[in-house]
């Protein structure tokens, strides 16, 4: 066993699984019997050394809270939902993984790109800042103006959500961060 794969039982949080099932999307975590359909059918797992949906589910079941929520591989799920559609136990696997991402996000563990798109949303209503050149190009192509966003109305709808917490630790200065490769 490699050093990396070892873990101490003292690092296990046996109550973690009950936290996960309370998060929307995480409800069916305990139904997983580790058949491995999700991992064997996962397009990302074929090209990643680290991303294994079955392993993430098992770690969550066992209570390896810190390992799961701190991992970078959690964010590699492409949300293709192949695992969700094929799980013989009817678990929405991608939703369980999304629930784990939501838990990590609540603790401020968020890849920068999400802070950028959230910042754009609050500013423009879109997840991008649509450049002026694109707006002009729309005109040249004969397209109607961009749909208007009632930013105040949007802000009011979001005011009771504690979304600032997602932005607080923002390390990203520019909204020009690579959103697409």
């Amino acid at each position, binding site marked *: 066993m490699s050093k990396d794969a070892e873990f101490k039982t003292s690092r296990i949080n046996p109550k973690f699984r009950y936290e996960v099932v309370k*998060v*929307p*999307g995480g409800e069916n975590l305990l139904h997983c019997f580790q058949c491995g359909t999700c991992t064997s059918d996962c*397009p*990302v797992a074929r*090209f*990643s050394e680290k991303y294994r949906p079955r392993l993430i589910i098992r770690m969550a079941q066992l209570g390896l809270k810190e390992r799961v929520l701190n991992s970078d591989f959690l*964010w*590699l799920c*492409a*949300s*293709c*939902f*192949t695992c*969700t*559609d094929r799980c013989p136990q009817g678990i*929405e696997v*991608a939703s369980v993984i*999304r*629930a784990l*991402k*939501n838990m990590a*996000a609540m603790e401020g563990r*968020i*890849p920068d*790109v*999400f802070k950028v*798109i*959230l910042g754009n*949303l609050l500013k423009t*209503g*879109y*997840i*991008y800042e*649509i450049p002026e050149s*694109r707006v002009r190009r*729309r005109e040249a*192509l*004969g*397209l109607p103006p*961009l*749909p*208007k*966003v*009632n930013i105040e*109305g*949007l802000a*009011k*709808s*979001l*005011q*009771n*959500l504690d*979304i600032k917490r*997602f932005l607080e630790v923002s390390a990203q200065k520019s909204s020009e*961060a*690579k*959103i*697409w*490769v």
Partner: protein
Amino acid sequence: MGVAHKYVFYLGCAIPYRVSSFEVSARKVLDRLGVDLLEMPDFNCCGLPLEPLSHELTLILSARNLAIAEQTGLNILTLCPGCAGTLKKTNRLLKENRALREEINKHLSGAGLEFKGSIDVKHISQALIEDIGLDAIKRAIVRPLKGLRVAKHSGCHLSRPKKYIGFEDPENPKALRILIEATGARCVEYLGETECCGSTIAAIDDKISLSLVREKLLHVKEAGADALITICPACHIMYDANQMRAERMFGEKYGIPVLHYTQLLGLAMGMQPEELGFEELRVNPSKILERIGEVKSRA
């Protein structure tokens, strides 16, 4: 022209940011088919890209769009399967779960909005097949694309998760194939047709997402297709705009033109490439246009 079809048009974020060619061609072909589009009077991101942060945030964002669209009394039509899927899922969750609906409506009420659950959401492919109909599409074809061999990529969110989308079988999606064949083109089969394009993790790990792009393009090439046809802005970005990135990363040459379905349909309706946003494409589409020229001269 048969029965008029009217929808409220939900544009989404990716299309105005990078994929105007899809919008231009879609508006042209829908207009030709007698479809009337009303612009969204107010709008925000559907919420899908932010779901990794907060499911609740996504529900509020999509419910807000649904509540705005409901005021028009029209069903939503969108070109983006990601938007369609998210709006559909929220629509269904809030229609079925009263407690959740009330909770989300509390957020919306501050801005004078209410989700009632009075409309449906359709992706363009679903509207073309279920509402407009193949007969109307075939009647509008003036230049059948006989002799053209294309491959299709339907994209994950058009049919997954099946429980919420319910439009077609994700293990054997047929809608795009049927729509392509209506233009007279042949839709060739290839290995891994339902594999993901990797766009959602492109900003997290470009090696993995471009590996998915590479695999898809190699399989399409092997099948001898003249072009790859998409019906999703995100998939299109991966295969068209990012094709050169994949070529650089892997030191290979794919040279596969990638067209929006609406561009293919527009050509079959006799429209010119410049009307359909062809100049916006990154991979040179002249190969496929020449083929169509050949087809025309033979006809």
